[in-house]
């Protein structure tokens, strides 16, 4: 009741504030008069009585203020008044306002942009029902975490884990080709368990989703669900597409439904065109369904109601124990058995799904977030310094306010209003900058990666921007406001200048030193990242990716299995067709692509090599066409490469790389030595027989640029059964000019082979450096931004101090000090500030850099080049910032300066 009355009273007062004001005035006047009356009646003279009454009543204005403050509405009114006042003062000093707003916009914009990416990649939950109930499963082996399981393991988890979870499974996204009344076209598809959609709680926008009955023990129902994006892109949202069928690897699939808009699966950043029941995979080998030799299913599960995460962990523990035993029993490799027996199940909160993008970009993004946070701190320090300088020039004004009875709190509030207004303007500018920034970020992240990422701001990003700007307002506004009001009104009004620099200087110095410390840290970090990127760029991949186009192709399929001979014939046809195109220098094909994750590892036996620990040696292998070394420009150092004479019927040959030769033969000549590919591990039979090494190539990078030297064994494609997955075409001129022609020609060679992807090899190389390039570029930009801000702050402070010391300088010059002495006097200040800042900043940076070492490549955290470069940049800025005021100081006219004292 009382509360309601207060609210109504407040609202009434707000609307009738004039009348209330009059009444209060009259009442207080009455009070004063009554007081005077009492005195005059007691015989005091009128004038004396008035004086006494005035003293007794105190400041009428203050009393009125206090009385007004009783209601809540006055705080609103005051806030409004403060804001209007702040707007007026800011308008009066446009330069200050512009500098502050731009500085803030840069700081807040950078933070918002990076946060948008953090939000999209790390924080956003899956667009499914009750995502907080989801858990993700992985198996942790002693040598790393395997996020995928075998089909048998998944089935076991479904069956035995059912009291705790509903487990759904999905393969990774696969590039394949489907034919819808025409030539095969590439699609990105995902094989999922029958309960995939129901577990995620996603229902079809049209038709139905994949359901449990589609996915019994293999073979399952050949049905498919389209993603909204693919439906739009390929079919123009035509509803009649439901019910139509297409061919995938010569099997007919029926489209049964469309997934809702915005549903991208369980992995953020992935594009999926089709979801199909996993047991319907055409031509899947039987070992895919039995045993644990192949792990290919990611598991995402939903907790049963009232079952907590720890209960799920405990409940699945015995389930996995049985799987572990099976895996161990299933392998012939003693090492893997040991490793499997030590593995354990990792159950984690899964509301964000699984994401390769998140795994790769989390660390760089968090580092960038810290960097932009520090930039904002530097920006705030700058504005705080500006505010302090303003407060110093407004000392008299503040003193008058205090003298006539304004409360300190009130003045601080006014200062904060100004800060908040600036922050709000800065946030507006920042949002605009952030929108531009996020598009730059998206390009940086996805430019070379096949991902779709929605970084558009949502409410969380907006909340972040608002909170950040409020935090900055407090950061740069509160301290100066408190400092400004802590003055002795009497002293300030008497016109006394603040003694030697005044109260602003110690705080101002601290702020500038902080800026220099933070800038040093940022510069050194940026230096390290740039150096690291340079080192990565300097890595010799061992092949020449320029002017090489790579095409991915599907294994040849038809109604009947395609024989090895026909497949080899198809590969020859494809290469011949490619080479016949004008502008093509040469074409080759291989099993493992250029820097691809699909590596072929094999146990081998090497003639004359006895492994010391009795463990069967393993190597990476690749099946290539004779032109491969030439097209990829992989130098053959000794012996020869493959030729067309290395046919099916010719004697078995192999080419190894230097690392292979060194590992197995040391200094001996590998040419003429014999090796064999084992069918199993440990080595059982040799289906290919022994092969004679005929050549040695230089080492190359096979799956990523950062890998250590790996032993590689090349075999001619004619002498092994492996399919070739990638075609490499070297062009004479710009590959872009002929890319479309080559693609069209290759796609037209034979319906049994589909071309499902085309890429410039250079882009493939660059894609592996996306995170590094992003962090190097952005950290350099932000480091320089921080340095510039710190430079401006330093200049401002030194210039201010010099003005304050004009009198002193005048006296010194009058007493015979030369210009050089004066310059030294001022520069000494600057050097001191920078030295203290750098002295604190370098150890801080070196300590911090150790946290970054995981993100650095062949660059130590205390890399001398990075550190000295940053110090150099800092010194340059310091010299400029210090020299300008110093020169101005030497132009002081001693007579003028002394007269002003």
């Amino acid at each position, binding site marked *: 009741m009382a509360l309601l009355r207060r609210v109504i*009273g407040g609202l009434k007062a707000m609307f009738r504030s004039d009348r209330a004001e009059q009444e209060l005035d009259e009442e*207080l006047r*009455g009070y004063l008069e*009554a007081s005077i009356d*009492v005195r005059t009646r007691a015989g005091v003279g009128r004038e004396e009585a008035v004086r006494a009454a005035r003293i007794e009543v105190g*400041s009428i204005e203050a*009393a009125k203020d206090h009385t007004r*403050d009783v209601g809540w509405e006055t705080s609103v009114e005051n806030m409004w008044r403060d804001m209007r006042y702040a707007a007026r003062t800011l308008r009066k000093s446009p330069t200050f306002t512009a500098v502050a707003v731009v500085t803030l916009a840069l700081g807040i914009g950078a933070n918002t942009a990076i946060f948008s990416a953090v939000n999209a990649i790390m924080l956003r939950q899956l667009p499914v029902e009750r995502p907080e109930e989801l858990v993700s499963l992985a198996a942790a082996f002693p040598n790393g975490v395997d996020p995928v399981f075998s089909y048998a393991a998944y089935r076991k988890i479904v069956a035995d884990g059912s009291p705790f979870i509903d487990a759904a499974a999905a393969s990774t996204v696969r590039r394949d080709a489907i034919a819808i009344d025409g030539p095969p076209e590439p699609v990105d598809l995902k094989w999922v368990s029958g309960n995939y959609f129901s577990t995620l709680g996603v229902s079809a926008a049209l038709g139905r989703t994949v359901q449990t009955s589609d996915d019994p023990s293999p073979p399952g129902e050949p049905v498919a669900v389209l993603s909204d994006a693919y439906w739009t892109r390929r079919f123009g949202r035509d509803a009649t597409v439901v019910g139509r069928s297409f061919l995938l690897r010569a099997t007919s699939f029926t489209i049964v439904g469309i997934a809702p808009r915005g549903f991208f699966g369980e992995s953020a950043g992935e594009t999926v065109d089709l979801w199909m029941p996993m047991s319907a995979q055409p031509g899947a080998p039987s070992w895919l369904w039995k045993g644990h030799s192949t792990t290919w299913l990611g598991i995402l599960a939903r907790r049963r109601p009232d079952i907590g995460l720890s209960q799920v962990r405990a409940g699945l523990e015995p389930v996995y124990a049985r799987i572990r035993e099976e895996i161990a029993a299933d392998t012939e490799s003693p090492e893997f058995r040991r490793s499997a027996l030590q593995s354990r199940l990792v159950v984690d909160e899964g509301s964000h799904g699984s994401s390769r993008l998140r795994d790769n970009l989390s660390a760089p993004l968090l580092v960038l977030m810290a960097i932009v946070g520090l930039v904002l701190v530097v920006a705030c320090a700058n504005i705080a310094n500006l505010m302090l300088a303003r407060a110093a020039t407004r000392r008299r004004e503040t003193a008058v306010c205090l003298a006539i009875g304004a409360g300190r709190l009130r003045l601080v509030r006014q200062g904060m209003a100004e800060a908040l207004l600036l922050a709000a303007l800065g946030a507006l500018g920042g949002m605009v900058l952030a929108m531009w920034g996020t598009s730059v970020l998206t390009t940086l992240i996805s430019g070379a990666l096949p991902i779709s990422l929605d970084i558009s701001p949502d409410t969380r990003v907006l909340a972040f921007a608002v909170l950040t700007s409020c935090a900055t307002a407090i950061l740069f506004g509160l301290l100066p406001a408190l400092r400004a009001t802590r003055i002795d009104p009497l002293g300030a009004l008497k016109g006394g200048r603040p003694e030697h620099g005044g109260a602003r200087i110690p705080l101002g110095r601290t702020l500038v030193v902080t800026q220099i410390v933070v800038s040093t840290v940022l510069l050194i970090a940026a230096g390290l990242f740039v150096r690291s990127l340079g080192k990565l760029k300097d890595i010799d991949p061992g092949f020449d990716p320029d002017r090489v186009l790579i095409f991915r192709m599907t294994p040849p399929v038809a109604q009947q299995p395609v024989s090895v001979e026909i497949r080899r014939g198809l590969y020859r046809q494809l290469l011949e067709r490619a080479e016949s195109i004008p502008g093509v220098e040469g074409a080759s094909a291989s099993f493992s692509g250029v820097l691809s994750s699909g590596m072929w590892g094999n146990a081998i036996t090497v003639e004359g090599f006895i492994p010391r620990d009795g463990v069967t040696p393993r190597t990476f292998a690749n099946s290539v066409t004779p032109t491969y070394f030439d097209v990829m420009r992989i130098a053959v150092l000794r012996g020869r490469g493959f030729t067309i004479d290395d046919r099916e019927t010719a004697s078995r040959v192999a080419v190894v790389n230097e690392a292979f030769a060194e590992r197995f033969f040391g200094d001996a000549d590998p040419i003429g030595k014999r090796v064999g590919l084992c069918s199993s591990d440990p080595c059982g039979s040799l289906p290919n027989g022994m092969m004679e090494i005929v050549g040695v190539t230089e080492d190359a990078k096979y799956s990523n640029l950062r890998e250590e030297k790996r032993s590689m064994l090349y075999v001619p494609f004619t002498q092994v059964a492996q399919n070739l997955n990638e075609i490499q075409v070297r062009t004479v001129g710009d590959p872009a000019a002929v890319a479309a022609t080559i693609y069209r020609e290759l796609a037209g060679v034979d319906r049994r082979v589909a071309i499902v992807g085309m890429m410039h090899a250079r882009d493939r190389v660059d894609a592996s450096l996306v995170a590094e390039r992003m962090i190097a570029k952005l950290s350099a930009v932000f480091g320089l931004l921080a340095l510039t801000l710190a430079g401006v702050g330093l200049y401002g402070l030194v210039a201010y101090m010099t003005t304050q010391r004009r009198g002193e300088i005048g006296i010194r010059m009058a007493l015979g000090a030369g210009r050089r002495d004066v310059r030294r006097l001022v520069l000494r200040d600057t050097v001191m500030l920078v030295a203290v800042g750098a002295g604190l900043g370098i150890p801080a940076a070196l300590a911090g850099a150790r946290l970054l070492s995981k993100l650095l490549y062949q660059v130590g955290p205390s890399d001398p080049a990075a550190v000295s470069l940053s110090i150099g940049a800092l010194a340059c800025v310091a010299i400029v910032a210090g020299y300008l005021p110093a020169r101005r100081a030497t132009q002081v006219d001693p007579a003028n300066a002394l007269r002003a004292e």
Partner: protein
Amino acid sequence: MAADSRSSDIVQGTLQMLILKTLALEPLHGYGIGVRLEQISRGAFRVNAGSLFPALRRLERDGLITGDWRVTENNRRAKYYVLTPQGRAQLKRETRDWEAQTAAIARILKASLGEL
């Protein structure tokens, strides 16, 4: 600011209770309340305008007193404050609480070891 050093001796809530009490005796205007408080307390409490008016405003807001413009004995217009029924009830409640509290405090202050 320094003017209300004496009245600050009166606890905020207490001042309101005292105002209610003076108004329970008869309607008074602002200055009258101050004088009456000083009289009754025999000069122990002196309330200045800076504390009195905010307190009056608060009481009025809460509906415990109402203001009424009347002519004073000196032929001037002044706002006389009157206790509302809620105000009277509030005074009764606060007096009771106050007495209970002071009695308790008095007991504590008088306590000797023998009684425990």
